[in-house]
C-alpha cells in the first residue's frame, strides 16, 4: 500500500517543475549566493577551530613536550649525582615553582623565542637584556617569560600571584627561594627596563638577586605585558630526597 502511494506521488511530482532535491537547476545568482553562504559558514567553522587549536591543542602539544624535556633534565641530574658538572643549558636549567599560580613546575630553558616558549616552558631572557642566572651567584636579574594562553599557558594565573608569595627556582643542587615584592599589572611591550639588572621601576636602587616574570596581558591578547618581581630570600641546598623547601610544602 505504502509503496504504491509513493509511486503515484513520485509520478505526479516528476514531470512538472517539482523540485527533486539537489537536481533542481538553480539560477546563477542563487548559486552564487549559496556558494558565498557556504564559504562564510566554512570561514566561521575554521575560525572556531582556530580558537580550539590556540586554547586547547597547543596546550596538549606543549605540555607533552615540556613533560618529556623535564623528565630528561631530571634524568640528567640523577645521573651526574656527584661533582659540579657542566650545567646543561640546552635541555633546560631548572624548574620554576610558583605555588600561587597552581601550575606545578615549569621547566626553564634558554631564550625567549617562540620556538622555545612554544614547548610549554619558561624561557630566560638573552635578548634584549641578558638574564643573570641565579646559579652564577652574581647579583642581577633573572628575567623569564612564558605564555599566558596556549602552548602550555604556564603563566596563565600570573594575576593570582600576590606580593609576598614565594617563587622557587629549583636547580640540580639548590632551591632558590624568592619572594614577590612588586607587581606591574600592565606595561608597554617596549618597556625593556623591567628586565634591568636593578629593576628601578619596582623601587629597587641597589644591586641584588632579583627575579622577573613577564607574560602578556590581558588574557587572550598581547596588548600589554604583566610583570612580577621577586627578590632572593635564601638558597637552600637540595638534600638526597629533594625535599622541597617549606614554601612549597603547604
Amino acid at each position, binding site marked *: 500500500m505504502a509503496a504504491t502511494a509513493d509511486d503515484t506521488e513520485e509520478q505526479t511530482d516528476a514531470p512538472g517543475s517539482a523540485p527533486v532535491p539537489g537536481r533542481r537547476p538553480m539560477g546563477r545568482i542563487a548559486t552564487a549566493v549559496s556558494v558565498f553562504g557556504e564559504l562564510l559558514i566554512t570561514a566561521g567553522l575554521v575560525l572556531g*577551530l582556530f580558537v580550539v587549536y590556540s586554547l586547547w591543542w597547543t596546550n596538549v602539544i606543549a605540555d607533552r613536550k615540556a613533560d618529556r624535556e623535564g623528565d630528561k633534565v631530571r634524568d640528567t641530574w640523577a645521573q651526574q649525582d656527584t661533582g659540579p658538572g657542566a650545567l646543561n643549558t640546552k635541555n633546560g636549567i631548572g624548574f620554576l615553582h610558583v605555588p600561587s599560580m597552581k601550575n606545578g613546575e615549569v621547566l626553564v630553558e634558554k631564550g625567549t623565542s617562540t620556538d622555545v616558549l612554544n614547548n610549554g616552558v619558561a624561557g630566560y631572557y638573552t635578548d634584549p637584556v641578558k638574564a643573570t642566572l641565579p646559579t652564577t651567584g652574581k647579583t642581577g636579574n633573572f628575567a623569564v617569560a612564558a605564555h599566558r594562553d596556549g602552548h602550555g599557558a604556564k603563566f596563565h594565573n600570573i594575576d593570582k600571584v600576590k606580593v609576598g608569595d614565594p617563587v622557587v627556582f629549583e636547580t640540580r643542587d639548590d632551591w632558590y627561594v624568592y619572594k614577590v615584592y612588586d607587581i606591574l599589572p600592565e606595561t608597554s611591550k617596549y618597556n625593556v627596563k623591567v628586565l634591568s639588572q636593578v629593576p628601578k621601576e619596582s623601587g629597587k636602587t641597589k644591586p641584588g638577586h632579583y627575579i622577573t616574570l613577564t607574560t602578556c596581558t590581558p588574557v587572550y591578547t598581547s596588548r600589554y605585558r604583566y610583570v612580577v618581581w621577586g627578590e632572593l630570600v635564601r638558597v637552600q641546598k637540595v638534600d638526597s630526597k629533594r625535599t622541597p623547601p617549606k614554601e612549597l610544602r603547604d
Partner: protein
Amino acid sequence: MYGWIWRHLPGNAWVRALLSLVLVLAVVYVLFQYVFPWAEPLLPFNDVTVDNQ
C-alpha cells in the same frame, strides 16, 4: 559547494557520509598540523616578551 561534493562522492548515502567524515577529518588535520601553526605567529595573540621591536 558542499552539495556539489556530495553529488560527486561515489556510493550510497552511508558510503558518502563516511567519505565526508574522512574528508572533514583530513581538513582538520591539515589545519591543525600546517595552517594554524603557520598562521599563529602572524596574529598578535601570543607575544609574551618585552622587546625593542
